[in-house]
């Protein structure tokens, strides 16, 4: 009864009192707000304030003239971006890599987590878990170097094996066909283990009673996974999926940049690497900001779309 009244009161806040009401509420929960303060400050300082820098995408920014002194050029840089002969190629490459990431990489940690969950020998389970985490702590430079050593045509072990079995050596490193598979396999290698953590935590939170009940009803392992585990972690999967989509264009600058060379640039150049080579290395700040802006814009649209879809499917979404 009281709750209902409180709700009604909240629904019709008398206008003049609203301000003090808010103050009161903040004061009431001051400790909570205090706890949130560092986070809020972080976002203001490092996420919102720098957005001011986006205005240089509308300028012909000269570092020595500063933001105030630089000439305004309107959408000039965006025009240049969209008319750039390579623009379509770069956008396609970015989206294709993103799609592959979603299609081939995203399910792997889930499958891995489900498999780990079914392992009954604790020691074995933990060892495997640790082993699959390890690559995450290696930098891309190392991962790419190891791949180079294994895949090179000049004595790389994989090509030597192929040659040993009578096959023709494959030019993995310097071909446009192998760039994408190589990229995605490296991502899986490095990140799959790490990705299982959240799923394993979610699985651990499932009430064991459910499994017991299912077993009594005669459900086998696969039925238990299908009817209990997966539905239970469904919302986690969806939240992670939306977040992943938000990172759509964060394909790992370092990773792709290290893999890029003259032979695979046609499929490997993505927005990030283009910003770096065309923009930052050449000191074209305005142009690179414009590209970065465009990239964030795509990311925003995709997140909103994914969130909308999630809500349509009856999930919570991220906001």
């Amino acid at each position, binding site marked *: 009864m009281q709750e209902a009244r409180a709700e009604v009161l909240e629904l019709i806040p008398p206008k003049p009192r609203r301000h003090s009401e808010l103050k009161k509420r903040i004061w009431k929960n001051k400790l909570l707000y205090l706890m949130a303060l560092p986070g809020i400050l972080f976002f203001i*300082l*490092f996420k919102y*304030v*720098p957005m*001011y*820098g986006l205005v*240089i995408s509308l300028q012909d920014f*000269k*570092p*020595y003239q*500063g*933001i*105030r002194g630089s000439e305004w050029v309107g959408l000039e840089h965006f025009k240049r971006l969209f008319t750039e*002969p390579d623009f379509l190629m770069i956008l396609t490459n970015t989206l294709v890599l993103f799609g592959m990431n979603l299609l081939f990489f995203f399910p792997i940690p889930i499958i891995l987590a489900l498999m780990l969950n079914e392992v009954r020998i604790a020691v074995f389970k933990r060892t495997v878990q640790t082993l699959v985490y390890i690559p995450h702590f290696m930098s891309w430079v190392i991962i790419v170097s190891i791949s*180079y050593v294994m895949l*090179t*045509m*000049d*004595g790389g072990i994989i090509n030597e094996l192929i040659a040993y079995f009578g096959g023709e050596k494959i*030019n993995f*490193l*310097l071909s446009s066909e192998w760039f994408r598979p190589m990229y995605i396999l490296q991502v899986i290698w490095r990140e799959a283990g790490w990705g299982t953590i959240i799923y394993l935590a979610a699985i651990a939170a499932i009430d064991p009673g459910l499994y017991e009940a299912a077993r009594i009803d005669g459900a086998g392992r696969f039925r238990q996974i299908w009817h209990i585990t997966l539905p239970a972690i469904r919302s986690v999967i969806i939240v992670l999926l939306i977040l992943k989509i938000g990172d759509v264009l964060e394909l790992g*600058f*370092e990773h792709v940049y290290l893999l890029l*060379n*003259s*032979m695979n*640039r046609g499929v490997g150049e993505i927005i*990030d690497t283009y*910003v*770096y*080579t*065309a923009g*930052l*290395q*050449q*000191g*074209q*700040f305005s142009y*690179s*900001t414009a590209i*970065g802006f465009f990239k964030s814009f795509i990311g925003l649209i995709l997140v909103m779309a994914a969130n909308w879809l999630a809500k349509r499917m009856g999930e919570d979404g991220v906001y």
Partner: protein
Amino acid sequence: MRKKSMLLVLSAMLAFVLVLSACSDQSGSNNNQPSPSADSGSASEKPSEAPPANEEPTEITIMLPLNIAETPPDTIKTELEKLTNTKLTYQFFPADTYEEKLNASFATGSLPQVTYLKNQATFIKFKEAIRDGQFWEIGPYLSEFENLGKLKESILNNTKVDGKIYSLYIGRPLARQGLIYRKDWADNLGLSAPQTTEDLFAMAKAFTEDDPDKDGQDNTVGLTDRNDLIYGAFKTLSSAFGTPNNWGEKDGQLLPEFMFPEYIETMDYMKRLRDAGYMNKDFAATSKTDQVNMFQSGEAGLYIGSMQDVNSLYNNLVKNVPTAEVATHNKITKPGGEFGIWAIPGYNNVVLFPKSAIKTEDELKKVLAFFDKMMTPEVANLMYWGIEGTHYTVVDGKAKEMDDKDKIEREVKGFKDSVIGEPETNGQYTGYHELQARIDAEKFIIENEPVAIHDPTAPLDSATYTEKGQELQKIITDATYQYIYGDIDKAGFEKAIEDWKSRGGQKIIDEYTAAYKANQ
């Protein structure tokens, strides 16, 4: 208000650079000085207002790229301060990310009094800012200083911007490129030093197929190369074929090297080498470390690049193959061709003096006085070779490095790359070498000078080139590799040239040609 907007730009820049490059976190290595933002505030309060008495040391802050992993200790700096009566603050930043650092510091107006750039390419990018009057023109002052006046006119000319001198240069020999090869292998096979590109091809073939190390196994290859068309083998080979250096004159206009038939010949040659397997097939993805490893492990027998690399190549090679011998060689031409070798414009880096940090003429003169002293043998030797008796000894009037190379690298290397001028002008010792191949190399480097092929555009300007020359160059670089790898044919390469032209290349040609004619 100004300060506030500066802070905003700074944070924007920082976030931007961090997000995009994601690999610049080494900049923390400048642990002994305040952050750039703190610097910008104090720059104007430096003691320039009240000229100190003669004995008082001048305070100078210097920003420069660092080619080793760790900031050097103060050993050299302390001595240097004593010799030059200065109080120096060195801001070292890793060379790999130095350009970003430069750009960010520049954007926030926090460049220190003495700003080293990274290389010629950075210099070209800074020309616009130089024209805008952000840096001191130092040309008129040079003659006031005894030693600075000795700097080579011809090289200063190459560093001029609109006919004015704004920078001091760090001199380098004009042409250090040549061939380093396994002498013992050549002897085993009865081969003499290659005179023509065909001899070289035969040598690469023999090194690959004829078991030059006589161990009965097919485990050797001819040439080892890397993903660098300039300092790797390609450009040096292109000189052998008679290709101009970057740009050449044809029918009264300047054209880029890749529009000359000799460039195609060079590509064909590289293609032949690679197709036949006489070089590492993955060279377009090979780093310098991997390239050098192939030579040092005794797998490859030919290395084309800086002949001065021979010491480190040899030292590491004999660790693996104790009986190995190496030799250096140049003067390779195409059959019937004339010898020439591409040259750099005589410097590899320059120093600029930002007006934002140096407020008055007096202050500028004090900073220049420091560089004037740097061009005395005493100071130049200290910075280039280290402390006599600790880092080097003098043998026959030449500097011989001590055995502890790690110590030299740690303590001296950071300063070595910042000495202006060259031995002829600053009086520093030349190096003493025991390795015959290196002694030869030094001789070849001197012999290269009269036949050096110069880049005619070095003293010229093209606004389009400054803006997107390097970006456009990528089209050609990619096409060159693709041609060598057989992904495209001659028609494909010509299409790439057309592409280059239509996206701004033609404008570059026109601008350079106009500047070239005006200069004559």
